[in-house]
């Protein structure tokens, strides 16, 4: 019984500590989502070798349901955006969290959050190139 009381108190403290951060992150995500429309994203791409990098950066800034990234990517292919760029965009959308960075560094450590996001960003571009290469030979 005493154990339940201690655990309840511990969990309640956890909620009290994390709730403001979660609400703040959600507010930031909502703002970014309103500012970055499909039209704005499609205008940013240059049709050059830099596009995968731009795609990865936009994906890193954006946040939300992965489904949204598929729909935006579907639209982007209509503008002639290549698959390496699309893949980098989809991957960073879900694996890199620039918007969630303050929450991640608060709860899991600044150094951990920094390096996890850097590695995820680099992996996204590497995977995008690998998939494009593999698709070509299979």
């Amino acid at each position, binding site marked *: 019984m005493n154990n339940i009381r201690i655990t309840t108190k511990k969990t309640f403290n956890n909620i009290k500590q994390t709730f*403001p951060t979660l609400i703040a992150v959600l507010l930031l995500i909502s703002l970014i989502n309103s500012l970055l429309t499909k039209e704005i994203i499609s205008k940013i791409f240059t049709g050059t070798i830099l596009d995968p990098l731009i795609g990865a950066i936009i994906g890193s800034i954006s946040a939300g349901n992965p489904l949204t990234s598929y729909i935006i990517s579907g639209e982007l292919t209509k503008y002639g955006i290549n698959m390496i760029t699309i893949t980098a965009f989809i991957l960073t959308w879900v694996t890199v969290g620039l918007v969630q960075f303050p929450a991640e560094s608060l709860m*899991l450590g600044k150094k951990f959050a920094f390096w996890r996001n850097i590695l995820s960003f680099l992996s996204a571009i590497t995977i995008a190139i690998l998939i494009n290469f593999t698709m070509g030979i299979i």
Partner: protein
Amino acid sequence: MKIKNLKIENNWLFLLIMTIIYIILSMTNPTIFNSSISFFTTTLYQVMPILIIIFSLIFAFNLMLDTKNIVKWLGHLNKKRGWTISIFAGILSHGPIYMWYPLLSDLKEKGMKNGLITAFLYNRAIKIPLLPIMIYYFGLKFTILLTFFMILFSIINGLLIEKIVGDKK
């Protein structure tokens, strides 16, 4: 204790900054403000059940698992079991990534390694219910390759994080 107090202050400071931004936005750009608030309320409504599940899990873990068990299951990087659990838990978990930070923070304090947390977070990108939609948009070959590379890179990133960050916060 000092660090804990600082954490709470930072939490509230972040929320305060966002509130100020929204107040300014409501006066300068009501269209963006309304669209952001609408997105915020819809998302909050959607994530609430997930948040309840996550805090229930934290409660259950605190009640049933002790530090020794967590370290035994997830603490050893050289054990296949730790990787497998992290990868599958990441794939099967639902909801936005930031909702899982409190639970992972709790598990980290109990001894879960940074590498396994990285693998868990990376595999959250693979969502089984969304795979049919991905196949519809990008094809089966692309979806299989993407899933394969993501699992592979979750392990690579996990190992690299262990090398770079170690287990310190």
